[in-house]
């Protein structure tokens, strides 16, 4: 039954029973989509099933994770190396799924470290961080990491402009001394390996978000900017003066050509490139220079499109024709036309320039404006059926509008303060549709209270009909800035179940239990240890002395799915380990006093798990 006054009572959930059945995924059955949500200030990635909203995995990326020793074990520490040294946390904002032909392909997930500028690559066969590259000449890596349609490049724009190269200057010389960069990280199409191909030096604005063109606009990328006033103090006032900021339109194919022609200068830099090698051990390399293009020497490479006002999103529709700006402080949602932009460039319909970058005339590029959309338009995704969905931060709602006519056709409240939103594949050439998810900053009264800090949340709406229907809200980890989702079938069949022990090339792996041993080299003691249900070998270790440095190289000899073993040593000053089947992980330990120290398996692996323990005797 549909009619009746009991319907749609609670927060617009039309028919609660109906909504429940739409998100119900029966025990033992699988969700239709994987959703990857940024952890924001947790630095991590949350993996959820849709439509159930079930948390499937918490993948550590930019922050140490005691649960499995990520960032503590000797094999993973190097992932946190930067030009500033060991930086074991960050603020992760925008997950981006690798794409082939403009559609998510399920191979990798990229995400930005915002604070200490970095980009990470997660391998979706193992759901672990495989690589992290640092970006020089950057401050606040926010317009990042946005992909080109065949994952040719990861793009990354600086939120904070800084002196380039860094130097000691008065902050109020911002306009003269501060610059931004747009970084182009090349992705190896087979391995996914990242390398910083080049950077474009740009005026010292704040570069906020980005998306690449596709279809007709393939070869271009768009970056929203704010603080085109170039203020360095009290930005809430001083960076909100201009009626319009800019969308930067970058012809990256042309930039690539300029680099090939030798127009880029090699500029000294120092940044880290960290990656898991074939033995699954993180290596960290220092890179000493980067190629930089100056727009003044590269005509046609970059243009500015005026865009009201302090835009956030820079979102390209599935056809590649429309570029939607999310003007946070604007009263309209401006939509630019790619084809009109090309014509305006051809006809030189310019309105001045900044540092050699021509400014196009707003009206010459404008496709249309969505009038009275609400307050604080932030970010837009697309359903592939001709509609766009824009999050409205201030008025806390999702607004659905039609591409081409720019009319608002539906709106639905969000609880509360929606930031980004996400439709599975909703920034791709071919959205998978079905749902839109609101990523909310504030939950207030939505859940049982948990003290002063409450969870952030995601809300799931059905978008298969004319009207959005709220189905579910579920808590998220940290702050979900942005998310991406794709059909589970693109990922699940490639999922690694265990690491074949015969292929373990870790230099301190053991392949059988009778290789377990203790080796001393001066004050360094290496314990070659194995685990299997339900014992360690060795489980009695003697001969360790105060002042030794002990490395426990723990190899899990299991060859079965979902059978990690843990390893924890009493009083160890870093984390414990969680060792996947067929993998070797190393815990460093310095015994502090004579005595006998217990260790045990922390992962309930079997009925005799409580028996999975041992002792280390420490002598003077």
């Amino acid at each position, binding site marked *: 039954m549909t009619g009746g006054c009991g319907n749609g009572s609670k927060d617009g959930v039309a028919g609660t029973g109906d909504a429940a059945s739409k998100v119900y995924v029966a025990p033992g059955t699988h969700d239709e989509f994987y959703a990857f949500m940024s952890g924001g200030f947790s630095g991590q990635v949350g993996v959820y099933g849709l439509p159930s909203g079930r948390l499937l995995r918490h993948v550590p990326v930019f922050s140490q994770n005691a649960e499995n020793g990520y960032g503590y074990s000797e094999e993973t520490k190097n992932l946190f190396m930067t030009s500033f040294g060991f930086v074991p946390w960050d603020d992760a904002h925008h997950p981006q799924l690798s794409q082939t032909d403009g559609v998510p392909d399920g191979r990798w997930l990229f995400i930005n470290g915002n604070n200490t500028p970095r980009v990470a690559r997660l391998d979706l066969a193992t759901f672990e961080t495989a690589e992290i590259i640092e970006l020089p000449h950057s401050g606040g890596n926010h317009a990042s990491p946005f992909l080109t349609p065949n994952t040719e490049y990861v793009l990354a724009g600086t939120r904070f402009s800084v002196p380039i190269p860094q130097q000691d200057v008065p902050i109020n010389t911002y306009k003269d001394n501060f610059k931004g960069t747009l970084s182009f990280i090349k992705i190896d199409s087979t391995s996914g390996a990242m390398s910083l191909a080049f950077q474009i030096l740009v005026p010292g604005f704040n570069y906020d978000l980005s998306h690449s063109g596709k279809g007709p606009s393939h070869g271009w990328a768009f970056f929203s900017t704010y603080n085109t006033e170039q203020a360095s103090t009290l930005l809430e006032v001083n960076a909100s003066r201009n009626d319009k900021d800019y969308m930067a339109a970058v012809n990256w194919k042309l930039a690539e050509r300029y680099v090939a022609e030798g127009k880029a200068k090699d500029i000294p830099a120092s940044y880290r490139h960290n990656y898991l090698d074939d033995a699954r051990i993180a290596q960290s390399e220092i890179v000493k220079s980067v190629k930089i293009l100056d727009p003044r020497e590269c005509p046609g490479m970059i243009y500015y499109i005026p865009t009201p006002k302090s835009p956030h999103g820079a979102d390209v529709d599935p056809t590649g024709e429309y570029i939607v700006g999310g003007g946070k402080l604007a009263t309209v949602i401006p939509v630019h036309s790619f084809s009109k932009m090309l014509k305006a460039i051809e006809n030189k319909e310019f309105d001045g320039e900044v540092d050699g970058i021509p400014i196009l005339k707003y009206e010459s590029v404008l496709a249309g404006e969505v009038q009275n959309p609400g307050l604080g338009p932030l970010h837009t995704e697309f359903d592939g059926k001709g509609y766009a969905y824009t999050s409205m931060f201030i008025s806390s709602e999702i607004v659905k509008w039609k591409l081409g006519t720019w009319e608002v056709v539906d709106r639905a409240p969000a609880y509360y303060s929606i930031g980004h939103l996400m439709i599975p594949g909703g920034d791709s050439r071919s959205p998978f549709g079905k749902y839109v998810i609101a990523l909310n900053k504030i939950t207030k009264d939505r859940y049982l209270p948990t003290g002063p800090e409450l969870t952030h949340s995601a809300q799931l709406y059905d978008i298969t009909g004319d009207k959005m229907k709220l189905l579910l809200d579920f808590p998220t980890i940290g702050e979900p800035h942005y998310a991406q989702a794709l059909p589970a079938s693109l990922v699940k069949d490639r999922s690694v179940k265990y690491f074949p022990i015969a292929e373990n090339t870790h230099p301190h792996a053991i392949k059988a239990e009778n290789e377990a041993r203790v080796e001393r080299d001066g004050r360094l003691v290496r314990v070659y240890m194995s685990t299997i249900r339900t014992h360690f070998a060795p489980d*009695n270790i003697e001969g360790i002395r105060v002042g030794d440095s002990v490395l426990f190289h723990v190899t899990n000899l299991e060859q079965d799915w979902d059978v990690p073993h843990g390893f924890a040593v009493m009083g160890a000053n870093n984390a414990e380990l969680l060792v996947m089947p067929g993998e070797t992980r190393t815990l460093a330990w310095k015994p502090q006093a004579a005595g006998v120290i217990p260790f045990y398996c922390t992962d309930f692996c079997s009925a005799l798990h409580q028996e999975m323990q041992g002792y280390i005797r420490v002598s003077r």
Partner: protein
Amino acid sequence: MIACRTRTIALLAALAALALVVGCSSGPETEAERQARWQQGQLTSWELEHGIGPITADVALAPVDAAKAARGRELFIAKCATCHYLDDRKTGPALRDITTRRSAEYVLNQILNPEQMGKLHPDGRKMVAQYAQYMTIQGITNDNATDLLDFLRSEADKPPVPLEQQPGAHVPPPAN
């Protein structure tokens, strides 16, 4: 009610007996039908004796092949000795005389299909109860399993040896 189908080889007699209980249709039993029957705990007398898994018929046993037994020994050290000695109890039972206590087919099924043997076979269930643990899956292939079988056959008649001489045994280092 389950369907069974006539089969060749050694299962004929067993299935004839089963047919009395469950009725019969023609054609070989499909893998799905077999799995469904196992899940319902309906094991044939052949399966009760020889186990359930990829081995579903008598295996013709050649004399022990020394080369296979040698490969099997290496595999035993890598894959089995984590939990089994030949002459002492470890995580699981001692294995020296296993091929005299159990048929070759049973041993192969136990190696190749440890999870179902532990859950669905009455003798396997008894072992799980006794050792409080399912035998771990070690990803052993059919060829490797017959190597292991020949290694175990080659050891069956030899006298017991001290722990440190048993293949793959991890012997704790002396205190220093």
